[in-house]
C-alpha cells in the first residue's frame, strides 16, 4: 500500500451532534488506515472533559467558566432542538434504538484506533481548563502541531 494518508479534524464546536459527526469521520478514516488527528480548540475541548468532581486550583473567572461549560462528551448540548435538555435525551433514545454509538463510546473507539486527540493549550488557558480535567492519554499543542499534520493531510475539516 502507498504511504499512509492523513486526516485532520479541527473540533471547534462543543455541540454533541457536531462532535459526533467529527468522531464518526475520524473513526472511519482510521479504518481507512489514515493517521488521524483531532485538534480540539475552544468549545470542542469540552468533549474531552472528565465527568468528575475535580478541584484544580483556579482563579474566580476560571471557576465560573468551569461551571458554565458542559462537563464531558455526554453532557454536551445539541446544535438544534436542545429544548432545555429534552433534545439530547430524545436523540440518545433514538440512537440506542438504531444502535448508533454514543459520543463517549466513539471517543474510546478513537483512542483504541490510536487516533491522536490533541488539546489546544492556548484555548485551555482562556477557558481555564487544566490538564487533569481532560481525558488521559491525549496530547497538547498549538497551531504548529495542527499545521504539521494538516499540511500534508488528505482530508482537513473544521467542525
Amino acid at each position: 500500500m502507498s504511504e499512509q494518508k492523513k486526516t485532520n479534524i479541527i473540533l471547534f464546536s462543543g455541540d454533541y451532534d457536531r462532535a459526533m459527526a467529527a468522531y464518526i469521520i475520524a473513526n472511519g478514516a482510521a479504518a481507512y488506515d489514515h493517521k488521524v488527528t483531532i485538534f480540539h480548540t475552544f468549545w470542542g475541548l469540552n468533549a474531552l472533559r472528565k465527568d468528575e468532581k475535580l478541584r484544580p486550583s483556579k482563579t474566580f473567572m476560571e471557576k465560573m467558566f468551569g461551571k458554565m461549560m458542559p462537563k464531558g462528551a455526554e453532557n454536551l448540548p445539541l446544535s438544534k432542538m436542545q429544548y432545555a435538555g429534552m433534545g439530547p435525551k430524545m436523540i440518545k433514545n433514538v440512537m440506542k434504538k438504531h444502535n448508533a454509538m454514543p459520543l463517549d463510546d466513539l471517543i474510546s473507539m478513537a483512542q483504541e484506533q490510536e487516533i491522536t486527540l490533541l488539546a489546544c493549550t492556548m484555548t485551555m488557558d482562556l477557558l481555564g481548563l487544566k490538564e487533569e480535567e481532560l481525558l488521559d492519554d491525549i496530547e497538547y499543542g498549538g497551531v504548529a502541531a495542527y499545521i504539521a499534520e494538516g499540511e500534508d493531510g488528505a482530508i482537513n475539516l473544521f467542525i
Partner: protein
Amino acid sequence: MNITKTLDAKGLACPMPIVRTKKAIEEVNSGDVLEVVATDAGAKSDLTAWTKSSGHELLETKEEDGVYTFYVQKG
C-alpha cells in the same frame, strides 16, 4: 469459495461495520476471504469504497431481506 473468517456486523450502525471489518481483516492472511454480514444500508457503498482504497478485493455481494453479505479477499 473458502471462507476463512466471518464477521457478524448485523445491527451495527455507521461507522462500526467498517471499523470492525478493518480489525477483522488484520487477523487473516493475504489471500484469505473474510465474510462480512451487515444490516446497515450504507454498508454497501462503504464496504465497496473501503475495499477498493485499502487494496483488498470485493469478490461478491449479496442482499437478502435487508441483510448484506460481503466477501472480501485480503490483498
